[in-house]
């Protein structure tokens, strides 16, 4: 009887935890079928787009993707270090939104000098955000003389949509685009103690984007 109870509890737990995984879709477009070449001494910089009015690609996501890429022996220049070194040409107001502006910027010897100093070969623009789409349920917590507890159930859906655009700073052309959509539902169960069952939507988006970017570049 005890064994049946344990198996049921384990099955129930697996079912609940299974419900906490995010669904992630990755789209990739390459401008050519050739592999993107990255020499051992060359580096990449990952920058967040920050010119949209209602959201901003957050630094935490940029650092997460950069960390994933670094793990694959790809040299990644920290975002803040590059933006400060090239100030004010990659601020939200001045950052190039397209290749024509990048070409004009790279024609400036001082800007080109910084790019050469860091041996930067590729620039990856990341644009996107994580939003809460829908939330429902209710949970109440109370404290009394005999103790306290939480009762109820709450759930919320999160959606992460991020797009990466890869620019070649040597040939001043676009190498490709990647898009990651990650969606999942998190739960909070109030059964005396509040039990959070969180779906790491943003983390999944970061892992997928980082892994995909890793495979995008080939180290020589």
């Amino acid at each position, binding site marked *: 009887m005890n064994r049946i109870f344990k198996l049921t509890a384990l099955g129930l737990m697996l079912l609940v935890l299974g419900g906490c995984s995010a669904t992630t879709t990755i789209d990739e477009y390459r401008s050519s079928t050739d592999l993107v070449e990255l020499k051992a001494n060359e580096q990449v910089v990952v920058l967040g787009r920050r010119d949209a009015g*209602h959201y901003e690609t957050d630094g935490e996501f940029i650092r997460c993707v950069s960390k994933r890429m670094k793990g694959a022996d790809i040299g990644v220049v920290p975002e803040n270090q590059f933006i400060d070194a090239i100030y004010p040409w990659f601020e939200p*107001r001045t950052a190039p939104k397209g290749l024509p502006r990048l070409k004009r910027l790279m024609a400036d010897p*001082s800007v080109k000098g910084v790019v050469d100093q860091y041996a930067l070969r590729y620039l990856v623009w990341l644009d996107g955000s994580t939003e809460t789409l829908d939330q429902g349920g209710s949970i109440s917590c109370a*404290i009394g003389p005999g103790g306290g507890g939480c009762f109820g159930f*709450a759930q919320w859906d999160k959606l992460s949509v991020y797009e990466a655009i890869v620019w070649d700073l040597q040939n001043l052309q676009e190498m490709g685009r990647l898009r990651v959509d990650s969606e999942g539902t998190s739960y909070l169960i109030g059964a005396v103690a509040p039990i959070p069952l969180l779906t790491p939507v943003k983390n999944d988006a970061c892992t997928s984007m980082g892994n995909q970017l890793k495979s995008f570049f080939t180290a020589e």
Partner: protein
Amino acid sequence: MINIKLSKQTMGLPMVLLLIVALSGCSSSASVRLNSEFPTVLAVPKPVSASIVFQEDFSTYIAQPNDKTVIDIGDAQVKLLKNVFAGLFDQVEYVTAKDQINGINSLVITPSVREVQVSTPSENYLNVFEVWIKYSLEIETADGETIDSWFMPAYGKTPDAFMYSKSEAIEEASIIALRDAGAKLMLDFYRIPAIYGWMMEQKILEESP
């Protein structure tokens, strides 16, 4: 939605103290002093000389965009503008009053703050804090002839309101707004029609790269 019901009888002194500490974290007032350093601008200055007048009310400027917010931006904005003007002009002097000007430099620029505005998530219904700094630059020739009075707005916002206290968020947004002011000045100063016309008149454009 989370409802917390507290029984009054069970709340001892530790509970009251805990509640006070927790609620003080939700305080809606903010007093911020900006001490940030700004990166050197990446630019080749044009062959123009200028005297920059940082009047005392500018270098000690403390903004009070509303009853509950105070931002001391004086020091930081002087640091930023010194940095940017050094990237715009090949010869530049900084003075605190017009009577200290050496008279050799061809432009005299007096910056001032017109207004500072702040917007919080409860006001803008976005998950960000926003800061606007509206500057005015009085640009004159060495002879005191006005070239232009240039309005220069700058904007900064936090990436996310989450994990920030109000003071930290306003500080972060103000620093971004100051950086934006530097970017705007670098990008647009020589595009001001009156400045462009004056440079054509002085034949400066022909000399500069």
